[in-house]
């Protein structure tokens, strides 16, 4: 399953390598690509001070980036506009994130070990039987996770500033060899300025844009737009006997009534559930979809009270430009949300860390100025590591979220143990592992069978209507 995807990916990189050989470009950069010279060797040394990097946005991406930078000996400032921000979010993190980011277990409100997939005709399939006892999907509160990562960054030496990023002055020449700083304008909030805040500026050498789906940093560098989904969610406090059912279970509802291109969900939170849905193509009907989601979960959330309504955009694909000069985008700002599941927290944190690592390496722990080529290394590593995951999820979305028959087939396939094992393995550990080829073949045959049956039933359905 992964090998065709990997082959295509190598194909992507082939074109750029060929271009390097055919186009006339500065020798310095050809040297980079051909002899894999350590980046930054030709950059001017930063004298008298360490490299200064600003991370705009203090979510998982910003927090992870700031911590890695500070640990690498770089002068880091982290600008976050709302320290107690409660980002409306599913809040699910994969198991590998707990290990990779050393998250304390008390950050996790709930461990989801079972999921129920519910088809348009209410066929309900439980998945999670293949999970080992130590495996789970962690449900977190964003305000808790974000604050923890920021605090850790501050402990590592980063300066956390409560401020709202306004705009950025790009130096005239940000090409290789230059070291003019980027000037960031922001409104700083502290006890002196009160609510109104005070216009301040800061000069830095490198900027990491981790400010989310509506990224202003992205706008400043003209990164371009992406298609986005609207995720709409209501937090509902349900009676405790009903809450028991959701103790460690999350539900996914699929159907045209719930969303034409995404899914509706019921995720358990600390002491309530989040019921929501999302869509890319029919944003105007989101309230209708939300009502339908509540209707489908009605029996299970009966007697519940809505305590909060929230919505947020979710990027569907990366921005056309994720890098410009010495400014790089990470997380939602770059558009690193997977299709099919809409997962973004882990990828935000990981990309923040990867970008920071590239800066630390390229600047030799803050001694040298970095240049665009060093930041490109982060993009290269990112694309190489996670492209198969993104592509597989894209294919799954295209195949199984197309129409009601496809969704029925999807839920039917979820009942298969091999599918469950593959799904959870790739979700929890973020690897696309090619399984046993014979099992893969059987899976392919079963998938096609399911799809054919569901579509055949659909054609009959059309005959009896009208």
């Amino acid at each position, binding site marked *: 399953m992964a090998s065709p995807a990997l082959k295509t990916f190598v194909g*992507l990189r082939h074109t*750029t390598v060929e271009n390097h050989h055919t*186009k006339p*470009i*500065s020798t310095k*950069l050809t040297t980079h690509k051909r002899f894999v010279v350590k980046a930054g060797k030709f950059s001017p040394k930063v004298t008298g001070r360490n490299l200064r990097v600003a991370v705009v946005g203090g979510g998982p991406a910003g927090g992870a980036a700031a911590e890695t930078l500070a640990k690498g000996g770089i002068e880091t400032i982290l600008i976050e506009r709302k320290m107690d921000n409660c980002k409306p979010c599913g809040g699910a993190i994969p198991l590998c994130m707990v290990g990779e980011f050393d998250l304390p277990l008390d950050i996790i409100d709930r461990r989801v070990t079972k999921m129920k997939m*519910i088809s*348009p*005709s*209410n*066929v*309900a*399939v439980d998945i999670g039987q293949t999970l080992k006892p130590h495996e789970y999907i962690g449900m977190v509160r964003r305000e808790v996770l974000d604050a923890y990562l920021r605090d850790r960054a501050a402990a590592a030496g980063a300066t956390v500033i409560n401020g709202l990023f306004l705009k950025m002055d790009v130096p005239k020449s940000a090409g290789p060899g230059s070291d003019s700083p980027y000037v960031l304008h922001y409104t700083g909030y502290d006890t002196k300025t009160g609510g109104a805040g005070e216009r301040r500026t800061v000069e830095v050498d490198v900027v990491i844009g981790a400010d989310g789906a509506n990224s202003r940093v992205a706008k400043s560098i003209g990164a*371009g737009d992406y298609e986005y989904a609207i995720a709409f969610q209501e937090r*509902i406090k349900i009676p405790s006997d009903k809450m028991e*059912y959701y103790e460690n279970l999350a539900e996914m509802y699929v159907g045209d*009534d*719930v969303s034409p291109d995404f899914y509706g969900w019921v995720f358990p939170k600390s002491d309530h559930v989040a019921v929501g849905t999302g869509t890319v193509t029919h944003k105007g009907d989101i309230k209708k979809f939300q*009502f339908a989601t*509540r*209707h*489908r*979960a009605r*029996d*299970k*959330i*009966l*007697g*519940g*009270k*809505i305590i909060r309504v929230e919505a947020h955009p979710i990027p569907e*694909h*990366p*921005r*056309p*430009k*994720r*890098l410009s000069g010495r400014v790089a985008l990470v997380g939602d700002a770059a558009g690193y949300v997977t299709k099919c599941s809409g997962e973004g927290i882990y990828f935000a944190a990981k990309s923040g860390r990867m970008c920071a690592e590239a800066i630390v390496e390229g600047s030799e722990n803050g001694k040298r100025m970095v240049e665009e080529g060093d930041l*490109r290394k982060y993009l290269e590593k990112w*694309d190489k590591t996670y492209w198969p995951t*993104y*592509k597989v999820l*894209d294919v799954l979305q295209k195949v199984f979220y197309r129409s*009601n028959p496809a969704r*029925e087939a999807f839920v*039917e396939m979820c*009942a298969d143990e091999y599918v469950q094992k593959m799904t959870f393995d790739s979700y929890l550990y973020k690897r696309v592992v090619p399984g046993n080829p014979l099992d893969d073949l059987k899976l392919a045959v079963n998938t096609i*069978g399911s799809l*054919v*049956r*569901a579509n*055949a*039933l*659909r*054609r*009959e*359905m059309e*005959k*009896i*209507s009208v």
Partner: protein
Amino acid sequence: MSMALFSSPPTHHPTSPPSLSPKTHLTRKTFLYLKPTKSHFLVSIKATDNGSGATVASVAATVEEEKKASEAPDAAGSSLGPNGSPAAAPAVKEVAQFGDPRWVGGTWDLNQFRKDGKTDWDAVIDAEVRRRKWLEDDPESSSNENPVFFDTSIIPWWAWIKRFHLPEAERLNGRAAMIGFFMAYLVDSLTGVGLVDQMGNFFCKTLLFVSVVGVLLIRKNEDIETLKKLVEETTFYDKQWQATWQDENSSKKD
């Protein structure tokens, strides 16, 4: 569970009480009594013949009627407005729930589909089609007490082939044969090469291959557009990811 609105063989009216307010129950019951006397007749006559398609159609007609009838008194109730507070969730929208005497415990009871000592798979398919259509038009709440776990793979592969693949295969083979005959005649009349000699020629074999593939993939005019869109779709996501690298190449140029 809620009332089934039609039944083929049994002559009694289903009286299982619905889990909604008694008032609506009464009104629905009256409609039940009004309608089925005549449509029930229809159903019992048709049920005896083997045309499953016809039965489904007539049955569906009665179903639609009765669904609409029971919806009429409820329309007034639901116009109170789904204002979105689940505290008022019970019975905001009262629409007939899906019910069928052969639908038992969240799946189809295959014993009730026996015909001549064997399971009538066509009837199972029809019943499932009807259930999905019903639920698509009126989605219902998924319930923990009555989980649904019907899986279409219990219907054997040959039943699917017989019902869906064979008619289509017949149509396609017919088309292929017609095209083949006409092309063979045309080529013979233009070049004098007979059918047997045509089959030995590489160019003719290529043409044959192209026409077989064409007949398989393109069955309606819209299919050409669909195929073009599919090809574009498979590479679209890759292009979105590559966009940042195109930028690198263009910036290197200057």
